[in-house]
């Protein structure tokens, strides 16, 4: 085996993004199939027969704003206007909350800029009783289900009306009623829990399904594997959503993804149906979500979906992306803006206009401002009516044990 002595010195390969501050963004090697190109398979398709779908991108809206192809779906103009309204509302809400954060009224915030279609459109594919296990970047699931804005704000402000009594960080919402599992600050854990919830539904011969959510960077977490193994083994009625917005914090998707082309491909190791969709195309997201949800309901098991989108804003209010990526990248992003694209589509349908859009924008800003006034009248972080310190000791257990009663006394509450 003397050739070994001649074997070359090894080197560590560390993936790098195409573009850092100062570079000009270049998405030319990012293959984007034209809208309508990808066929829509039957619900009972064998995962292995749609292997290519993990390397393509399902798109419905073409450049002209027409909905084309087998995934065009059956959303009515009213549905579409509602969807547009949800995305606009989420964007307005985010903008106001970011400002409030800068004013010190909120400790921490993370927005959805550019990703609004994913959570807003997905929500419309669910039924009452279905459960999402979201990350901190799926507030559209609540907005689209009509969750009161003032409650979201009360939590972000951590005021006396905070439904979570000041215990949780901003944006880590919780609402069983709205099918929104309590958001964890720990990445990946909830992706696995969604599979367990879905298994429970199957064990109970129920008809409800679960939806797990995870970011591109977080797919590297170990619990991603546990989720895939359990979903695959027990064929759980769950939709597993990977939101690929290209970046973790300062870390580009290539570090989590490694040597494979897409995140959707992860499903191939488990025989799970895996598809990739244009995350900035409201119609495509809805159609794909509906397809996956119907598969789960029909007993065909889990579907893994990668939403291809882009995080236009900073990772969070604590982050400054200009240090690690080019400011021009967002503008160069080839899949456009979800709100603009749906707006154009509605206009081409003759169901919407610039005037109505401007008016809707104004109405939504009023609506958010009103909710904000209401919430701020109660209090904001550190000023006005605050959650009580007593609440700090409640709900650790259903019944307060002696040591906590003693500690609460010691604390003087």
């Amino acid at each position: 085996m003397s050739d070994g002595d001649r074997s070359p010195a090894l080197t560590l390969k560390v993936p790098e993004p195409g573009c850092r501050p100062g570079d000009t963004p270049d998405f030319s090697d990012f293959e984007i199939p034209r809208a309508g190109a990808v066929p829509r398979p039957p619900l009972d398709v064998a995962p292995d027969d749609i292997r290519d779908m993990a390397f393509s991108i399902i798109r419905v809206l073409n450049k002209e704003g027409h909905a084309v192809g087998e995934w065009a779906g059956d959303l009515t103009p009213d549905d579409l206007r509602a969807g547009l309204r949800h995305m606009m509302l989420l964007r307005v809400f985010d903008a106001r909350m970011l400002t409030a954060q800068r004013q010190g009224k909120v400790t921490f915030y993370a927005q959805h800029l550019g990703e609004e279609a994913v959570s807003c459109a997905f929500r419309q594919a669910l039924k009452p009783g279905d459960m999402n296990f979201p990350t901190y970047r799926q507030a559209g699931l609540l907005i689209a289900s009509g969750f009161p804005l003032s409650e979201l704000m009360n939590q972000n402000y951590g005021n006396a009306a905070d439904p979570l009594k000041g215990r949780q960080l901003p944006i880590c919402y919780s609402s069983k009623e709205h099918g929104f599992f309590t958001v964890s600050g720990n990445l990946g854990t909830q992706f696995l829990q969604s599979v367990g919830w879905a298994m429970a539904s199957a064990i109970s011969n129920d008809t409800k399904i679960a939806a797990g959510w995870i970011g591109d960077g977080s797919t590297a977490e170990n619990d991603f594997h546990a989720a895939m193994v359990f979903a695959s083994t027990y064929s759980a009625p769950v939709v597993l959503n990977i939101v690929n917005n290209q970046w973790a914090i300062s870390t580009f998707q290539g570090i989590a993804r490694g040597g494979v082309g897409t995140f959707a491909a992860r499903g191939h190791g488990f025989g799970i149906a895996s598809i990739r969709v244009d995350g900035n195309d409201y119609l495509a997201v809805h159609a794909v979500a509906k397809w996956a949800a119907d598969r789960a309901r029909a007993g065909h098991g889990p579907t893994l979906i990668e939403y291809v989108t882009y995080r236009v804003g900073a990772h969070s209010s604590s982050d400054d992306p200009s240090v690690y990526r080019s400011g021009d990248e967002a503008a160069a992003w080839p899949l456009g803006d979800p709100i603009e694209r749906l707006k154009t589509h509605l206009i081409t349908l003759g169901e919407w206009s610039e005037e109505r859009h401007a008016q809707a924008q104004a109405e939504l800003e009023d609506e958010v401002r009103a909710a904000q006034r209401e919430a701020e009248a109660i209090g904001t972080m550190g000023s006005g009516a605050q959650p009580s310190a007593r609440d700090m000791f409640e709900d650790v257990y259903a019944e307060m044990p002696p040591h906590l009663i003693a500690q609460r006394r010691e604390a003087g509450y």
Partner: protein
Amino acid sequence: MAQMTMIEAIRDAHDTAMEADPRVVVFGEDVGFFGGVFRCTAGLQAKYGKSRCFDAPINESGIVGAAIGMAAYGLRPVVEIQFADYVLPAYDQIASEAARLRYRSNGDFTCPLVIRMPTGGGIFGGQTHSQSPEAIFTHVSGLKVVIPSNPRDAKGLLLASIEDPDPVIFLEPKRLYNGPFDGHHDRPLTSWKGHALGDVPEGGETIPLGQAEVRRAGRDVTVLAYGTMVYVAEAAAEAAGVEAEIIDLRTLVPLDLETIAASVKKTGRCVIVHEATRISGFGGELMSQVQEACFYHLEAPIARVTGWDTPYPHTQEWEYFPGPARVAEALKRVMED
């Protein structure tokens, strides 16, 4: 009443709970068809079907994380971790998730979940079949930690844990599965047959969590023990000829400080024993709470007898295991102090 081993009592508790409540589901590595490597779930799959008792992939985080999702849905999962040594991959799901659902969602989501696991040494299991990780669970707010020392308590406490609305870590001293063990490894094995605590009530009677039991009354010194060490303490008290009051804690969190303090205030002396390593073991917490509650009654330093601060060795099992000789020595020392 029926005579049972601890294994039979645990199986019976599962059976009773599954019979009474369709929400109770049981899974873990090898627990389904086979009934668990210690046979604690034998027969459950045959009786209740594969969707209520099944084998899980070898992924402890997956087992606990999936169970958390099931509990949030409304089921009452009871999962087995094959050995307590293997629970660490699930520690994040337990401490960051199960323990906090209720708190962070203001009661909107809860986690009625029981995580069972064989714990402790004395079986020549070496580094990975002998450890006692109770301390790292007692440090997590939102968890309850239970450890029975006999068949009767095993059934009653397991039933109470399954009914509990919050996550419970249920530690089963594997050296006690088939009989009490007092650390005298050179003597013949004893079984639960004929042992008073081997008499297990039929039906759904629970033993409330948070209540210690005085196993042996005495006026000289209070011994705080749990699991296998309860019997080691009894043997040591015998050997030392000390009137020890031996308290079987049974639940570590919430702790029955009342029973403990009452005893120490009476005896003025306290010895704490556990198998786990010493530094930051639960003995440190016990010693602190006794010191805080009984300082002015103490006539001697509180002592602890524990596993050494090394990984659990293999051939040196009996030099490592805190046996009756070491405990007796400690009892004599605190009596002299």
